[in-house]
């Protein structure tokens, strides 16, 4: 087992030392960890299965090494490094640790060879990433983080339920392709799928993403944008390639995300919807399921990691310096932070699929895959999304973030400046990779699961892309006035649990528990106490009761008398015991007894 070092475990274990280090040593140590993990990835042997352990009689496989997992591992390690650089200025051990745990657990999930190991890392991912949201310390961070965590735990439970169904029937935890008629049947299939889809942020299970990511810490969001959804894509490729429902879902995702981006005001929320939209491409590609499509899916995941990371870093830098994330309050700051703007625009071009940028290659692969499979609607709708992507990021976001004349927020304008160097360096690294993948697609292709000799730079493809971009820009220019941001928020499917959750708690608190307390009060207090009171002097109590009753039914003439009598009776209650139950009554009882006995005996 020593022949391989698990990159994820390197990161997880590597965190232990962080609190004990200081200053420059700590910083270099933090950057060293992803590099070591990267090296470990490099020295992995594809096609081997290592780190197999026995747990509760189950076989846990921590290291399933093949081209797919290695590719994801590369991307994750590099992005972790970039993210590390980006957060270097930060003096918050816990965020660093959480970030590394998050990255490490994602890598763990990537190398997981069985479902239980996958689930294990899945949960660590949820918790460590939630920390990054809590650490945002915005007004709604903790609440959004809690929602995020709960949703993810729910997703994890779907996954767990599916795994259980699968396991109970096959007594195997093998993590390979699932089919509806495999072990556990359609139930297991769909449960696991739902678990994965939730992490992939497929509507209507996507609201957690746009809810929580904008609330994450500035550096944390970079990690958030990278790992959860891409890991989900990885497991979808593993488990569900060719599941046709994913094509539909993918297309819905892309459009859904895009529609929201157009009306969104919060820059990071806008980018979050873009994640949904972009992941939609990958999901659709997984659904198409051909080798080429899978390659496209993986490729888009890798390019996405970097350009989306870059965009989040750019937006983060803006928020970091200006303190606001609302488009309505920003604009015009390109003069103050030109380097940031340039780097950001690299990301925007990449996501929009400009030729020579990474997005161009990967998006072309996915649309191409649909194209080859003669999927007309898929092709058209994915292309439409590409249009929307450029519209909202390359044009709308960039314009409102940086270029639009700023008359609304002098303070933001005043505060704007270049972010710390480490941020810029990190962005530059990501930008370099965005361009590298675009200019030299072979670098990207070498990370893909299947060998490919695809050439995206055919004449017709380039012109078609340019046409789309150009005419989008034209349309944007024409309707520019309609696209001004508004101080609004867009409700999403999280409305259901945000609104009903509160009502649920209210319902429990108010009617349910009150009734419960009432019943408990009656049973445990009122009844025993009443009984005790009554038994002090049953006859007297009976008298009081009878008088009260006759008071209720009698006419007004007797009332005064009765009232005073009750008052008197109550005043002396329970009274002197020896006088109750006079002898006479006992004698009567004796007589009754005798009579009864005789009657019973003789009759």
């Amino acid at each position, binding site marked *: 087992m020593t022949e391989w070092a698990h990159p994820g475990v390197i990161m997880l274990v590597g965190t232990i030392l962080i609190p004990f280090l200081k200053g420059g040593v700590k910083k270099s140590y933090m950057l060293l960890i992803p590099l070591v993990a990267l090296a470990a990835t490099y020295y992995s042997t594809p096609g081997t299965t290592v780190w197999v352990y026995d747990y509760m009689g189950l076989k846990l496989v921590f290291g399933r090494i093949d081209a797919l997992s290695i590719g994801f591992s590369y991307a994750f390690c590099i992005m972790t490094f970039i993210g590390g650089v980006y957060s270097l200025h930060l003096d918050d051990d816990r965020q660093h640790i959480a970030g590394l745990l998050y990255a490490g657990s994602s890598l763990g999930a990537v190398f997981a060879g069985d479902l239980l190991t996958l689930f294990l890392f899945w949960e660590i991912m949820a918790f460590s990433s939630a920390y990054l949201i809590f650490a945002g310390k915005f007004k709604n961070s903790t609440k959004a983080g809690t929602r995020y965590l709960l949703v993810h735990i729910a997703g994890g439970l779907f996954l767990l339920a599916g795994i259980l169904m699968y396991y109970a029937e096959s007594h195997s935890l093998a993590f390979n392709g699932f089919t509806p008629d495999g072990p556990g049947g359609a139930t297991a299939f769909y449960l696991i799928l739902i678990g994965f889809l939730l992490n992939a942020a497929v509507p209507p299970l996507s609201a957690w993403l746009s809810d929580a990511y904008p609330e994450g810490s500035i550096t944390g969001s970079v990690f958030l944008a990278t790992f959860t959804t891409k890991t989900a894509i990885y497991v979808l490729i593993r488990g569900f390639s060719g599941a046709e429902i994913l094509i539909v879902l993918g297309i819905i995702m892309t459009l859904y995300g895009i529609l929201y981006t*157009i009306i969104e005001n919060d820059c990071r929320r806008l980018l979050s919807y873009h994640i949904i939209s972009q992941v939609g491409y990958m999901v659709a590609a997984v659904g198409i399921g051909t080798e080429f499509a899978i390659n496209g899916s993986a490729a888009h995941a890798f390019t996405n990691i970097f350009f989306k990371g870059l965009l989040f870093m750019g937006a983060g830098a803006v928020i970091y310096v200006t303190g606001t994330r609302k488009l309505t309050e920003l604009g015009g700051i390109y003069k103050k932070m030109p380097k940031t703007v340039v780097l950001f625009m690299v990301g925007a071009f990449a996501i929009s699929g400009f030729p020579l940028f990474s997005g161009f290659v990967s998006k072309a692969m996915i649309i191409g895959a649909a194209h*080859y499979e003669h999927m007309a609607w898929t092709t058209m709708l994915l292309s439409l999304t590409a249009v929307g992507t450029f519209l909202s990021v390359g044009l709308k976001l960039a314009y409102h973030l940086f270029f639009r004349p700023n008359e609304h927020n002098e303070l933001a304008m005043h505060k704007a400046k270049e972010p710390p160097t480490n941020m810029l360096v990190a962005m530059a690294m990501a930008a370099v990779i965005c361009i590298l993948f675009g200019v030299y697609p072979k670098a990207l292709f070498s990370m893909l699961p299947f060998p490919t000799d695809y050439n995206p730079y055919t004449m017709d493809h380039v012109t078609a892309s340019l046409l789309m971009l150009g*005419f*989008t820009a*034209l349309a944007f220019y024409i309707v520019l006035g309609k696209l001004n941001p508004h101080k609004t928020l867009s409700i999403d499917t999280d409305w259901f649990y945000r609104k009903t959750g509160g009502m649920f708690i209210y319902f429990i608190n108010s009617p349910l528990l009150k009734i419960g307390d009432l019943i408990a009060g009656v049973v445990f207090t009122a009844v025993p106490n009443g009984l005790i009171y009554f038994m002090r002097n049953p006859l007297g109590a009976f008298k009081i009761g009878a008088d009260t009753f006759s008071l209720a039914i009698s006419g007004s003439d007797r009332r005064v008398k009765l009232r005073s009598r009750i008052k008197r009776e109550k005043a002396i209650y329970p009274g002197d015991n020896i006088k109750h139950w006079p002898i006479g009554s006992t004698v009567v009882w004796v007589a009754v007894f005798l009579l009864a006995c005789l009657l019973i005996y003789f009759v």
Partner: protein
Amino acid sequence: MKLSRKVKTIFFIILGLIVIADYFAPRGYPIFPWDTIPAFWGAFAFVGCLLLIGISKFLGYKLKVMKKEDFYD
């Protein structure tokens, strides 16, 4: 946004050039009928763009997806 006439001119020239280039570009792997239509993707993008904006505005205003910022508070 006010763009200067010069910028606009350059922009339209570039657009025109791309359309022309597209007209001459060899179609590598045509499958659908529209694959061979010149500048099809330009028109597609223009219409699609307006369509997306229209739909999203419809969603935002008519379907009340956009709410005041203190909606959840």
